[in-house]
């Protein structure tokens, strides 16, 4: 704990110095770019005014280019009261607030959020370029918000549930990737992840109902069976990307561990009372996904075909289609997800009945479909 506080203090001091430094957000004489942010947040309940969360975060991003090589490092220091304190008194069983936490425990922590080396190699052949990347990396797969079935490479911190954006919830995973660009519109990407990190559910406030009920009923919640305790299997991911007729398409594949657990319950005693034990187990999963995105631009000039429009209506619509198949190994289940996502941006003027009708039709057109099967 003392070491972590020292790191935290050092990181905060570094962030402060970087913030007041004249070279911040620019490249210094050594060519290292430094930027970052500091955020303070208070969340309080409206019913009794209880404080749910006091949150202080500092991100510090370093970057440096060495020709075709880029190094990026993101350090994060947090003081987050929604995260439970360390519980060193009982290493065998968990209480309901401690439930499923990761190595970076406690409300105060400083850690390496993302750090990688990226190198580009260019060719004058059928292959245009190759990008090699290695380190602790945060991947972003899929185009929609929040619910993203193909975006499963990184574990997440659910201590504040979905009230924190998905990109902020992610933890980087130690991994290596290679992307082969045949053209700027056609690439193949492969990822190897030689570690397993679970998503975190531990929270001082948002404890899942099932866990509360199990705990209240006297069930024992065992420590999770993490894969690394029994084997060291890598996780793998791959992606094929193609842009054709302005449609961005990806075929995604993942073979590895699900970051959220399945639960195994066993009866411990039958007499004098039935007692049970619940053990979270992380299962392997295969995912095959397909997604595409198409930007649509619709522009209507004023006065066209007798319609009186005082302005110009522009709809900039991105349409997503996602088809995902999950195969949970050693586990019989099947799921299908249908998902549609639409992005509307730029100026939309609804000043005529015709303009309103057009917008509604566009909304209907852009309701796309995605499916997921899990086994």
């Amino acid at each position: 704990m003392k070491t972590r506080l020292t790191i935290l203090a050092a990181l905060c001091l570094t962030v402060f110095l970087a913030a007041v430094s004249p070279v911040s957000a620019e490249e210094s004489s050594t060519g290292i770019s430094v930027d970052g942010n500091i955020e303070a947040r208070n969340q309080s309940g409206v019913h009794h005014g209880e404080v749910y969360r006091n949150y202080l975060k500092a991100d510090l991003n370093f970057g440096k280019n060495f020709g075709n090589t880029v190094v990026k490092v993101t350090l994060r220091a947090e003081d987050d009261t929604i995260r439970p304190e360390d519980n060193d008194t009982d290493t065998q069983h968990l209480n309901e607030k401690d439930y499923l936490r990761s190595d970076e425990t406690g409300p105060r922590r400083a850690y390496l959020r993302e750090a990688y080396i990226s190198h580009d190699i260019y060719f004058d052949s059928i292959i245009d370029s190759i990008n090699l990347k290695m380190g602790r990396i945060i991947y972003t797969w899929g185009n929609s918000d929040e619910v993203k079935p193909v975006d499963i490479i990184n574990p997440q911190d659910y201590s504040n549930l979905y009230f924190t954006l998905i990109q902020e919830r992610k933890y980087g995973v130690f991994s290596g990737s290679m992307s082969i660009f045949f053209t700027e519109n056609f690439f193949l990407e492969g990822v190897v992840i030689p570690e397993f990190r679970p998503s975190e559910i531990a929270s001082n406030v948002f404890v899942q109902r099932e866990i509360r009920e199990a705990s209240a009923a006297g069930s024992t919640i065992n420590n999770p069976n993490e894969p690394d305790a029994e084997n060291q299997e890598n996780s793998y991911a791959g992606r094929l990307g193609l842009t054709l007729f302005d449609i961005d398409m990806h075929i995604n594949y993942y073979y590895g561990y699900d970051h959220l657990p399945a639960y195994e319950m066993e009866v411990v005693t039958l007499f004098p009372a039935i007692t049970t034990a619940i053990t979270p187990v992380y299962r392997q999963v295969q995912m095959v996904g397909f997604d595409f995105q198409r930007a649509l631009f619709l522009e209507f000039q004023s006065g066209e075909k007798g319609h009186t429009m005082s302005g110009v209506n522009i709809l900039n619509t991105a349409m997503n289609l996602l088809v995902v198949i999950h195969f949970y190994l050693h586990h019989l289940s099947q799921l299908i997800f249908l998902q549609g996502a639409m992005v509307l941006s730029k100026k939309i003027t609804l000043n005529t009945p015709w303009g309103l009708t057009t917008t509604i039709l566009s909304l209907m057109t852009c309701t796309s479909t995605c499916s997921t099967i899990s086994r």
Partner: protein
Amino acid sequence: MQYHQQIILDYEEGLEKEQYVNMILWNVRYYMFNKKFCISTRGAYDTGDKSVYGNAEIMVKLADNFEFMVGGWMVEGRRDTLIGQFDYYDMVYVAGRLTF
């Protein structure tokens, strides 16, 4: 705006799961005054459970590198649903973010 449907075709017996889960997610932002002021809302509505969590936020850019935010989260639904189990956790928040 996003629509999401989950259909369970087959699952181990004894697990309590809804066969169909339909969700509508939204994320809307409206910038004003040269992006110095922004009102936004995001959240999700589960049509099966009739539960919802939603956020409304006002952001004011007090300086080029400093944003001040005030907002709230509302959670509604039955206690036995994924979202509604946190029905009692409606909240307000204030936040500040300095970028450099």
